[in-house]
C-alpha cells in the first residue's frame, strides 16, 4: 500500500483476501468492506494509505466491547466455579492447567475437577497439569459420572474454603445431542450444590478452526449459555478471525488467548493486540 495509490477495486480485492485468509469469513468480510466503502466516501478519502488504519479500527471496534478478562469476584463467599467446554482437541485441558497456574501464582487456592471420564488418559493428563499448577485435584475412576466428579470438586472447594474450581469436560462435537445433554446435566447438578455456579462457562475455540467455530459457539451458547471464550493455539499461523463474526452475532466476552503449550502460555484477550496480529 504505497502512499499516493488510489482506492481502486484491486485494493478492495486485496483487503478481501487478507480478511478471508484470516478466517473472518465471506459474509463478515463483505459487511466490513461495505462499511469501509461508505466511510471512505463519507470522509472523501482518496489515498489507499488511509484505508488500512480505517479497517483496523473497524475490526477493533467490533471486538473491543467484548474484551473482558476473567474476574473471579462474582461468587460471594463461596468458590468461583469455571466449567470448561468445547469440541475435541481444542485445548481445554491444557488451558485449565494454565489458568490454574495463573491463579495459584496469585496465591489463590484452586481445585481442578476431572469431569472428562471418557477419553483415554484424560484424567492422567489433567492430573499432571494440576500438580504442575499446585492445585488440589479431584477425580473418580475412568467411566464415572462426570456430574458426580463436578459435584465433588465443588464440595471439596467449599469444605476447604478454596477460591476457585475448574471443571474439565470431555471434548464433544456440538452436533451430538446426548453429549450436549450431558453438559447441561453437569451444569444443573453443580448449580444445585452451589447457587449461581458455574459462574463461568468458558468455551475453548481452536484458532485454526474455520467457519464451523461460529456454529460451535452458537450451539454451545444455546445449550448452556457461554459466558466467556478462550481462543487457543494463536501461536500458529492461523489468525482466529472467526471471533469477529462470533462477537457480532453472539456478543460473548472474549477472555483469553492460548499462545503455546507451556503453563505460562496464556494471555488476556486484547482487541488491539489481536487486530495487530490479524493484519500482520
Amino acid at each position: 500500500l504505497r502512499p499516493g495509490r488510489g482506492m481502486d477495486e484491486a485494493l478492495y480485492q486485496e483487503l478481501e483476501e487478507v480478511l478471508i485468509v484470516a478466517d473472518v469469513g465471506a459474509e463478515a468480510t463483505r459487511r466490513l468492506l461495505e462499511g469501509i466503502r461508505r466511510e471512505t466516501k463519507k470522509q472523501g478519502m482518496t489515498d489507499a494509505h488511509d484505508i488500512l488504519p480505517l479497517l483496523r479500527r473497524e475490526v477493533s471496534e467490533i471486538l473491543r466491547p467484548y474484551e473482558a478478562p476473567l474476574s473471579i469476584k462474582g461468587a460471594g463467599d463461596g468458590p468461583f466455579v469455571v466449567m470448561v467446554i468445547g469440541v475435541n482437541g481444542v485445548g481445554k485441558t491444557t488451558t485449565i492447567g494454565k489458568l490454574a497456574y495463573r491463579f495459584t501464582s496469585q496465591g489463590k487456592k484452586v481445585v481442578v475437577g476431572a469431569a472428562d471420564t471418557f477419553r483415554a488418559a484424560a484424567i492422567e493428563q489433567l492430573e499432571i497439569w494440576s500438580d504442575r499448577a499446585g492445585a488440589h485435584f479431584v477425580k473418580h475412576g475412568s467411566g464415572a459420572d462426570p456430574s458426580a466428579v463436578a459435584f465433588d470438586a465443588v464440595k471439596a472447594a467449599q469444605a476447604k474454603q478454596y477460591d476457585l474450581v475448574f471443571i474439565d469436560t470431555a471434548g464433544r462435537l456440538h452436533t451430538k445431542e446426548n453429549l450436549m445433554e450431558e453438559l447441561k446435566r453437569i451444569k444443573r447438578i453443580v448449580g444445585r450444590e452451589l447457587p449461581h455456579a458455574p459462574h463461568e462457562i468458558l468455551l475453548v475455540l481452536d484458532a485454526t478452526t474455520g467457519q464451523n467455530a461460529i456454529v460451535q459457539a452458537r450451539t454451545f451458547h444455546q445449550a448452556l449459555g457461554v459466558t466467556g471464550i478462550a481462543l487457543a493455539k494463536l501461536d500458529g499461523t492461523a489468525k482466529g478471525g472467526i471471533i469477529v463474526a462470533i462477537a457480532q452475532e453472539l456478543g460473548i466476552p472474549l477472555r483469553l488467548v492460548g499462545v503455546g503449550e507451556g503453563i505460562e502460555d496464556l494471555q488476556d484477550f486484547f482487541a488491539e493486540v489481536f487486530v495487530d496480529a490479524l493484519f500482520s
Partner: protein
Amino acid sequence: TLTERLDQVFKKLKGRGKLTEKDIKDALREVRLALLEADVNYTVVKDFIARAEEKAAGQEVTKSLTPAQLVIKIVHQELITLMGGGENNSLKLSGPSPIPIMLVGLQGSGKTTTAGKLAGYLRDNKKRRPYLVPADPYRPAAIEQLKKLGESLGIDCYTPASGEDPLQTVAKVREQAREKDFDTLIFDTAGRLHIDEELMEELRAIKELMNPQEILLVADAMTGQDAVNVAKGFNDAVGITGIILTKLDGDARGGAALSIKAVTQRPIKFVGIGEKLDAWEVFHPDRMASRILG
C-alpha cells in the same frame, strides 16, 4: 443450499441454448461463496473457479438438466476429480517388514486416536500384525493415552523408557519388531506447529532414521484457511504420502480437504468419523465433494 441459490441465479434463464459467459460468471459467483463458506482456501477457490469456468464455457443447456443443475454437475465433477476421484488411495503396505508408518500433524488433530484406529484396521481388515509406538515425550500422559487405546484393542504398544526421545524409540523399536514379529509399526508423533523450527527438525530426523513407507498428515476437518500453510509446512519438511481427515462426524463442511489436497497433491486415504476406535472409513471423494458444496 447451493442448488437453491443457483436456481435463483438462473430464474430468468428459460430454455436458452447455451450457458452464456455472463450466466457462468453469475453462477460461479455463488459457487465461490459456497466454497469460501466451506473453508476452502481463498487461492485454491480462485484456481478452482477459473478451471470450472473453462469447463462450463459453451456447455449446452439440455432438457434433462436445469441450468443450475448443469453448473452443479460441472462443479461437482471437477471437485471429485480434485479430491482424488479415480485415484488409488490405498495404504502402501508392500516392502520389507516391518513397514513403518508415521503420523504427523498439528496439536489436537487426532493423531493418537487415529493411530489406534489404524492399528485396528490393519489387524482386522488387512490381517496384519501392527505395533503401536508412542513417539510423543512432551504431552502429559500421551504415552499412557496410546497404551490405553492399545489395551482396549488388544494390540501391543511399545513402552518408551522415561526420558527416551523419539530417535531412541525408533532405533529400539526396530530391533523389538523383528524379534516379536510385528509387520507394521505405527509411530504416533507429538503434535507440532509447522512453524516450530526445532520440532520440524526433529520430525525430519525421525523420518531419516525410520525411513517410513507412509507419512500421513492427520488433519482436522474443521480447519480453516490455515490448512494450506499447515499442509505446505509439513509437506516441505518431510514429504507427506497421504492424508487422514478427522472429526468428519461433525458438521464442518471440510473445505480444508480440498486445500490440503491442492497443496500436497497426495491422496486422502481415510477419514475419522467418531471418537470410538471403529469410527473409521476409507475416503470417498464424491461424498466429500457433495459435503463441501453444501
